[in-house]
């Protein structure tokens, strides 16, 4: 079943007619549930989107530039061109997502009007308002947000995110930060669950205040022993083994940014990452997937300790 923890279906984004309701928490979070055990691929063109669909991606995420190119180009990164998003929507049958800037209420409105299937309020783009994320309950279109701690994930869910992606460092081809943050979120959930199971409600309240979230959402998360929404891993995935490792840490699926289309064997690599994500629990199948790619053709990775721009920190304090 889908957890409805923190539900605010009385908001503007929920449209209720006589017998029909749209934009409910169940259909928003339910959409993310249908992506589970799948790979969402960053794309910038119809050609890339078609390769992603043929490889078995569950969805594509449209950007103006891949994260590694955003990093290289500098300047302000904004949402993708409406025409490119539309062309891609008209070319593939799988769901199409697109990114807007953190806090940019009207980029999100535009994406919703274009009718993308999900909006990613993303730190890969230059934040428009780092202290106020979008109040996502006001949209009928569901949102996904990044997080690198349990507190951040729950704050985003309370703002209406229907899905979380645990952040790594985008555009680096280095999976280390994604691994660190998944383990951190897992540890924090285990700690919250231990407090919950001990019956010490006062301590759980103290933790909710530390996290700057409501007691109720923390209680439900601790009770479930997992986030109340689908949680994918993202940031720095470059190989099938990277994807399989993140799945083994309990993620519900994978976002791949630059790792596929900045490699020299994109078509094979796209299929191989999908296979490794699906069959992560069967090491012989992961080996087969890894054999489909050539390390000489992987994107060149970056040392994440020496970066001038750490995208993961954007909007984290809010």
């Amino acid at each position, binding site marked *: 079943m889908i957890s409805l923890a923190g539900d605010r279906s009385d908001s503007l984004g929920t449209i209720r007619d006589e017998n029909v309701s749209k934009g409910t928490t169940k259909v928003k979070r*339910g959409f993310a549930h*249908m992506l*589970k055990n799948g790979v969402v691929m960053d794309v910038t063109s119809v050609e890339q989107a078609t390769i992603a669909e043929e490889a078995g991606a*569950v969805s594509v995420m449209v950007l103006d530039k891949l994260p590694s190119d955003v990093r290289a180009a500098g300047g302000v990164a904004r949402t993708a061109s409406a025409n490119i998003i539309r062309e891609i929507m008209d070319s593939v049958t799988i769901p199409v997502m697109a990114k807007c800037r953190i806090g940019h209420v009207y980029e999100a409105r535009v994406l*919703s009007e274009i009718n993308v299937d*999900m909006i990613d309020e993303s730190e890969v783009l230059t934040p428009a308002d780092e202290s106020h994320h979008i109040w996502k309950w006001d949209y009928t279109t569901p949102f996904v947000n990044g997080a690198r701690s349990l507190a951040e994930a729950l704050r985003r869910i309370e703002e209406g995110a229907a899905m979380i992606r645990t952040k790594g460092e985008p555009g680096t081809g280095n999976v280390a930060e994604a691994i660190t943050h998944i383990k951190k979120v897992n540890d924090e959930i285990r700690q919250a669950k231990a407090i919950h199971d001990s019956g010490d409600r006062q301590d759980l309240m103290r933790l909710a205040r530390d996290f700057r979230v409501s007691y109720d959402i923390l209680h439900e998360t601790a009770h479930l022993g997992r986030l109340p929404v689908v949680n994918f891993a993202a940031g720095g995935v470059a190989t099938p083994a990277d994807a399989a490792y993140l799945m083994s840490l309990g993620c519900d699926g994978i976002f791949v940014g630059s790792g596929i289309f900045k490699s020299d064997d994109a078509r094979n690599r796209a299929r191989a990452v999908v296979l490794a994500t699906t069959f992560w629990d069967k090491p012989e199948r992961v080996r087969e997937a890894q054999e489909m790619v050539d390390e000489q053709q992987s994107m060149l990775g970056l040392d994440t300790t020496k970066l001038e721009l750490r995208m993961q920190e954007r909007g984290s304090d809010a």
Partner: protein
Amino acid sequence: MSITVGVLSIQGDVCENMAASHQALDEMNISGNVIPVKTPSAISDVDVMIIPGGESTTIGLLTLAGDTLATLGERIRGGMPTLGVCAGLILLAGDVTDRMLGGTGQPLLKVLDIKLERNSFGRQRDSFETILSMKPLGIGDFPGVFIRAPSVTAVSPDVEVLSVYDNRIVAVKQNNTIGTSFHPELSGSTELHRHLIGMARR
């Protein structure tokens, strides 16, 4: 007797269907188990099969890769009670088009003699909840959760229409196989899962 329910666990909302099946077995007081099915060999252990919601192109491609699709097709044709939900309904269909893009050319099991339109109600923003009924199964007031749902546009005389919503066919049955556009595993009601398990008992 003991019943084993298998849920195709390639991609999609597998654990929601497993949870609904567990609950249905409990409510029916039947001893049994529910297993995820990822490989052809696992299919032989199963009495009842569920193909969950998810992305039909992904599930189809990856099921095809391991010959699971062919083995599954044989068992369904051999009479195994089977439920296909949303993407699962698409995989069971004989003929599939996309509302915007036309022919999809995706791998299909072709065990239901139906024509089907993907994304029939529009994109995610138009996903919805409503109340519907499946009168031929004796199920009324059932919460229908439709997520980028397909609908059935034509059926052969062998196919029984179970439910119609907004002049569109959203649930069908042919012999041992049931398909729904909506997600019974998200409805909070186990009525359809119980009906499916009941088919294995007879």
